[in-house]
């Protein structure tokens, strides 16, 4: 009685599969948790047309018309005026540090030149290192200008309110004037590639030792835990260096991505970032019981690196809570370092805040990992 299909056998396999699914807590958590996280991130946090972008304004002529333009920009919802700046240098520095996405410059004698029909220009310097972040805001400008003109050019000035408008707005896309996607994506990819490989390789390498039982043999020798950890992790620091060098060469030679800024700042940044990733991999290895689990948990940490760091979607476009979460993601800080240095020509001073961010994350992760690491087999 060997039928072609036995329902009893089939259901035995089915039931067994469910039992095993339930036993493997990590995988089970991934199956339920991952879709939920994706749903909430995509649903709430990600915004491809970001609003409320931090904007600074340099007002050299304060009159009803310039006030109307600024009010119009604020009302559009795209621009959040964070404060005034004095002079070009101050505005540039704010853009380079990433404190502002836009700096609006109202020129001197703006109102007078408008009245005299001289067609003055309002200058908007935009951080185009992430082109999608500013695209919507830049596109909204012409409408804002028209409304401002219609509101203020009344009475004796009504004659100026025709077309073309009596003044123009020039948007300077800085750091990536052509708005090339590669220029934006390629530096960011370094952050993603490093976190993906470093975290996973470290976690798997450590878990492999206990999974295969060789950790028991190691612990039985007089070797100290610190010697084991250092000896195991250092080779992967080397791997991280190789990856970074290959990456930078490819970015320059193949993708024509500029490297404008300080090599020192970049070096400090990527060393810190590699350390953070190794610590994270180490932390995962203390939680994972098999190499499979280590892979899954590593993958889990990579999602926020892609979605919340500002790599794929503009950071400024995310709601406040998502930005707070994103700030705890190491890739967010490293991404800013890489873009700040490679595209914006930043030096150590411009990215110090991100170094501090990486350092704090490193310390927190290391403390948790050390507390979890056991020196014996208990």
């Amino acid at each position: 009685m060997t039928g072609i299909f036995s329902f009893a056998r089939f259901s035995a396999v089915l039931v067994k599969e469910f039992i095993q699914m339930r036993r493997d807590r990590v995988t089970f958590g991934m199956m339920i948790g991952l879709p939920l996280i994706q749903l909430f991130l995509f649903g709430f946090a990600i915004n491809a047309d970001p609003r409320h972008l931090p904007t600074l304004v340099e007002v050299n002529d304060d009159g009803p018309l310039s006030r109307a333009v600024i009010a119009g920009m604020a009302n559009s919802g795209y621009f959040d005026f964070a404060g005034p700046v004095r002079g070009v240098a101050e505005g540039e520095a704010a853009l380079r540090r990433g404190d502002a996405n836009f700096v609006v410059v109202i020129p001197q004698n703006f109102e007078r030149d408008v009245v005299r029909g001289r067609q003055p220009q309002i200058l908007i310097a935009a951080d185009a290192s992430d082109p999608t972040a500013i695209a919507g805001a830049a596109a909204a400008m012409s409408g804002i200008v028209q409304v401002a003109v219609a509101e203020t050019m009344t009475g004796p000035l009504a004659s100026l309110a025709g077309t073309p408008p009596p003044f123009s707005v020039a948007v300077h896309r800085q750091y990536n004037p052509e708005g090339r996607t590669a220029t934006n994506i390629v530096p960011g990819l370094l952050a993603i590639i490093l976190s993906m490989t470093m975290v996973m390789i470290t976690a798997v390498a450590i878990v492999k030792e206990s999974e295969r039982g060789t950790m028991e043999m190691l612990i039985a020798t007089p070797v100290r835990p610190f010697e084991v950890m250092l000896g195991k992790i250092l080779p992967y620091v080397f791997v991280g260096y190789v990856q970074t060098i290959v990456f930078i060469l490819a970015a320059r030679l193949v993708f024509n991505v500029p490297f404008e800024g300080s090599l020192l700042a970049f070096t400090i940044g990527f060393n810190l970032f590699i350390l953070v990733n190794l610590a994270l991999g180490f932390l995962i290895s203390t939680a994972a019981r098999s190499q499979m689990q280590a892979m899954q948990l590593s993958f889990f940490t990579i999602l926020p690196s892609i979605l919340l760091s500002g790599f794929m979607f503009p950071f400024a476009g995310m709601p406040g809570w998502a930005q707070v979460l994103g700030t705890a993601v190491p890739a967010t800080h490293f991404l800013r370092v890489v873009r700040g240095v490679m595209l914006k020509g930043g030096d150590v001073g411009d990215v110090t805040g991100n170094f501090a961010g990486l350092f704090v994350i490193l310390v927190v992760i290391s403390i948790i990992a050390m507390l979890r690491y056991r020196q014996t087999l208990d």
Partner: protein
Amino acid sequence: MTGNGQSEPVIAVTGLTKIYGTRKVVDDFAISVPRGAIYGFLGPNGSGKTTTIRMLCGLLTPDAGEGECLGFDIRTQAERIKEQVGYMTQKFSLYEDLSIRENLDFIARMYRVTNRKARVEQALKDLGLADRAHQLAGSLSGGWKQRLALAACLIHDPQLLLLDEPTAGVDPKARRDFWDEIRRLSGEGVTVLVSTHYMDEAVQCDFIAYIAYGKKLIDGPSAEIPAQIGLVTYDVEGPDLAALEARLKAEPGVEQVARFGASLHVSGTDKPALEATVERLKAEGTHEWRLEKAGLEEAFIYLMAGARDNFAGAGAAAA
């Protein structure tokens, strides 16, 4: 307790206890192992043998108890103990993706062996693997893996060998060779503590500790174990032993019937009851009955049989 008490014991511990959750995996364990002895740990799976061995060499911290191993405190001087102990794990725990030489060299470095290169070459030669030294350890057969693991344990000339079921899954010839080697080491003054399931290995030990459920039930020189249990054994010969065996199992006083070649060994601890049964069956005249001195074999079968019930009674959670 032992005959050669002229020197300090290599291991002397008392009250050793390990608790996982609410379960006492090892409960109030005490042992004294003289230098150069081969001490066997016997007991069913999950009885706490491995946990005990791990506590003795500092891999696990005991929850209670104290003692010395090689003159060092097991609680505070684990690092010093590790330097002089060779620990062979139950599962092959060398690197399968390293070659035989690389594995030995790695272990030698772990113990900071002096004159390392020569020591590794010597170990390869002793193993008879000198011409296969470049082969990956993972490609070795079970017997060879076990020999390699033993060679790795010995590379730093340890004073004490802890062997956790060293011959599981190894063929009888390799097992015999392995035990010859253990005997030789013991003769050189190396103390050996070995856990095993095999009776023929238990017989090789100078001392036996029988553990079940984390508790030590019996402990002493192997020759005294049968007497300690108080087992009385009869040897029976004659026709149709299978039928007799089935019948004997229901008789009063018979606690164990075991086949030994062409005869049955009938044993029990209740001497008068067993004698009465034997007298009754003797009168039938079909079989030849002879009173025997109970050996280690009967003693172990008896212990194992008792422990199996013990084991089943408390759930199959293995340590």
